């Protein structure tokens, strides 16, 4: 079974772009099955939010900024499968 780790680079907030890294826990290297994609950047006010929630289940990864935006992607294909606004949790 493969596992996925996701890291969010939040340095240089004013100019930062979010990057999601999908790593293999068995090797620590970039996961060979992960697609390259980037999610839309949130407004500046949300970029340093500590409320970012990430959840992985199977092929899906969900990224939620509480009360603002939920995006669900297939991390193997890069497809965005769901966008929902205003989600709390």
């Amino acid at each position, binding site marked *: 079974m493969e596992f996925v780790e996701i890291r969010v680079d939040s340095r240089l907030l004013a100019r930062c772009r979010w990057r999601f890294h999908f790593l293999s826990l068995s090797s620590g290297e970039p996961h060979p099955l992960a697609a390259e994609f980037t999610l*839309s950047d949130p407004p500046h006010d949300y970029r340093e939010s500590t409320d970012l*929630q990430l*959840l992985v*289940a*199977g092929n*899906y990864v*969900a990224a*939620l900024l509480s009360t603002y935006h*939920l*995006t*669900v992607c297939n991390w193997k294909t*890069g*497809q*965005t*499968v*769901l*966008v*929902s*606004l*205003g*989600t*709390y*949790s």
Partner: protein
Amino acid sequence: MAFLPENRILVASHSTDLVCAQVPDSIASGPVLAVFNLHAIPLTGDQQVTQTPVAMFGLGFDTIDMHLHYRPNTHSYSPEVVVPFFSSPADHIIALETTNELVTPRGLGTIRALRDIVLIPIVKLLYHVGTAEKEGTCCFVQWDDWGATGICRLPAPPPSLCRNGVSGSQFIPYSESCGVIDVCDFSHAQARVAQLQTSVLESVPCARKEVHLPAGILSSATAALSEDAIVIHEASIVAPSIYPLIYIQLIYIHRNSLPRKRRGFIFSSSKISSASVKQDALWRSLCI
């Protein structure tokens, strides 16, 4: 948010934020749980689409904040494999942590946060979602039709316990008892599926068991629950008159799956660190 079986996702939101036509007035302005089917529309590249939920579950109360907690069993087994301490996916529960504000009377203006936990058998949600998916339309389910019976509502434990206190069909509720951790087991919740339409006000049944902590553990210890174990973390200051302060962090693990005679806290690790110098490298393990 919580991923549900068969590529669905459950979110807590407000109906006004969701794309759904003809929302009934009864849930139009209130908090809801919404289920999306991730199969519905495959997209490519940067294309993004705001989807319509498959089902929306109205909450019969107002809340200013919501958090969903759900942790399925880490390992999956086929139904033919009997693992005594693993609950069936049909037994799993979802915990909805809600926060509300209570303004004290007489206009004093003091606001207290009231936190509750609503424990929902996953089969209750999937029952309605399955019906909605067959009909192919967004299904609106009002609180009285799904949540007024067959759920369990409890005072919320501290936030750290809400996050880590749910596993499969088990939950660690708020407890005022020192030295004891209660564990609620809802593993027979699916027996209520056939009675979902009943109008009897009744909480979903659960079995409660007590785990007695080793002597000396403070009530401020935090705990995390997994399929067959409770992990307890305790941080305490020893010799507070000495500088730098010495912190001892103890981790206890209680496993339910051991034979009855060997049950109890079987293992602990301790971490010692000082306030002025990071000495986090010192770890030791011992059997107790």
